[in-house]
């Protein structure tokens, strides 16, 4: 009976996972990707083009708005929709690069930590603990405050504050892979450490990486916009969703759209990454649920 029951549950789970392909999430992400890549062609206006006369026009569906500026304009008369489109570029670029960079660092350290164990593991895990105890935002803000908010700096800082999530999960995966006999066999057969890591261990880790990477993209985008919101992220005139939110704050009582729509954009992108990431997790590796908190 046990096998029957387990088989039934597995059938159910796989069917459910396949049925729930997150078309919504994928669509949202594709739209944003598309928009970000083709920003110069898609955006109706130049995001820096000011038109003081038109300042603070409400979005088209409200009284006082018109179709010329679909989502209204900001305090300098810049078209909000265009700024949001160009802001997508910034967010996605920072997001992807930071995720890849932190992925490298985290995976590398996770592999070393899991595979070699012993002192290496203890040291790396201590560093992980230390870093986890420190509020990432404060650390990031302090560093950027010290070294200056250039795009590169931001990406690097985000990367060094977020690698930890990869490291822990990768390490757990490596440990469970290592427990398999084929790793010992490879060692006995004389494979070099590098080869073992590359051909035997890494492939087992890729699934988790894909899932975490996707989910982290959302978190990094939020992180970057938080930095911009506090003024220590991407600097004007480059439009960033975070800055738009911060600027719009002062006008919130009578021009609420300035802060609302950029936020909606962020939420949609992150929703997309969460949906896709969750789906990937269900399809690729249900065991991950326990490792990811």
């Amino acid at each position, binding site marked *: 009976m046990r096998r*029957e029951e387990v088989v039934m*549950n597995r059938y159910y789970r796989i069917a459910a996972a396949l049925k729930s392909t997150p078309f919504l999430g994928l669509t949202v992400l594709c739209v944003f990707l598309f928009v970000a890549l083709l920003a110069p062609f898609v955006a109706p206006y130049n995001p820096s083009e000011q038109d003081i006369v038109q300042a603070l026009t409400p979005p088209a569906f409200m009284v006082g708005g018109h179709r010329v500026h679909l989502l209204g304009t900001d305090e300098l008369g810049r078209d909000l929709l265009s700024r949001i489109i160009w802001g997508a570029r910034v967010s996605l670029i920072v997001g992807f690069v930071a995720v890849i960079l932190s992925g490298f660092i985290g995976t590398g350290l996770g592999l070393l930590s899991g595979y070699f164990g012993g002192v290496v593991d203890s040291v790396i895990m201590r560093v992980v603990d230390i870093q986890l105890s420190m509020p990432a935002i404060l650390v990031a803000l302090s560093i950027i405050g010290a070294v200056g908010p250039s795009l590169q700096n931001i990406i690097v800082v985000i990367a060094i504050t977020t690698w930890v999530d990869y490291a822990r999960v990768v390490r757990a995966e490596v440990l469970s892979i290592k427990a398999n006999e084929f790793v010992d066999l490879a060692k006995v057969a004389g494979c070099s450490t590098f080869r073992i890591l590359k051909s035997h261990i890494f492939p087992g880790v890729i699934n988790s990486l894909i899932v975490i990477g996707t989910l982290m993209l959302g978190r990094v985008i939020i992180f970057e916009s938080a930095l911009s919101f506090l003024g220590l992220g991407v600097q004007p005139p480059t439009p960033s969703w975070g800055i738009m939110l911060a600027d719009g704050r002062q006008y919130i009582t009578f021009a609420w759209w300035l802060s609302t729509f950029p936020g909606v954009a962020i939420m949609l992108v992150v929703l997309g990454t969460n949906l896709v990431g969750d789906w990937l997790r269900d399809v690729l590796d249900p065991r991950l649920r326990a490792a990811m908190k």
Partner: protein
Amino acid sequence: MGDYILEVLDLKTHFFTSKGIVRAVDGVSFGVREGQSLGIVGESGSGKSVTSLSILGLLPRPAGRIVSGGIFYRGENLVGKSDQEMRKYRGTKLFMISQDPMTSLNPVFSIRSQLGEAVLRRKSLKSRALDEKVVDLLRMVRISGAEKRYNFYPHQFSGGMRQRVMIAMALACQPDILIADEPTTALDVTIQAQVLRLMQEVREKYGMSIVMITHDLGVIAQFCEFVLVMYAGKIMEQADVQTLFERSRHPYTRALLESLPQIGVKRSRLPTIKGQPPDLLGLPPGCPFYPRCDYALDKCLEAFPPVETVQGSHKVCCWRWHHL
């Protein structure tokens, strides 16, 4: 031995999955008498465990459902009863212990707490008296040092002891029928013998009917009075244990018996049953044992044979039982 206290009539339990319908139990009829030890033997996937879950109303929802048939406990049909109604029967009238004692006990509650719950189902006792009763139960199942250990947690006991605790739980509940689903499969052979002996004592002392579900014919031989042989959701043969071992009339049963290693018999190779275990999603019409049967005829592929009486309580479902 008395009358039937449990009668299962043409029970059909199906699982509805995205890949199709799994007919886990497909027309099963049998009865359990008071104080009897009934064995249900079959491979994994034969439907033996699903039968017991059906009786208790604990099928995994929403996939599993009793599609038709009746389960009569002292005349009352349990099929179709709500969870709330079933609760009246569970514990006090029907109980089940399952294969894995490691996971059957809640790891975060003490043995005392879990056994106590079972005791309280029958009578309410104050804390002191409850402690004593729990210690008593542990002693009955021969767990040494019960006075000191009744407050321990499951992980502090070994597998065999945990199974004894489950038996103690059965004693606490005092059901009419105890269903034991592969209770010794996860244990060492020596422990197995002890647990079986304990169950035998329990049965004799309390007049409890025990339904022993297993794939191990040795356990059947040791323990059971009457046996059902199941395959792919159907009962192939039923008889008292002596008759089954000596005068079986079904090819599947015969094959099972022949594949048992025997002391004193020299053989170059242990016979196995040819073919693959049945795929419950793609069962052929007719007899499910057809692809693996040495006596198969075309007729066997067309229709499943009806139940026929060989002699007395010995019944079989085979077109060719006369020829065996």
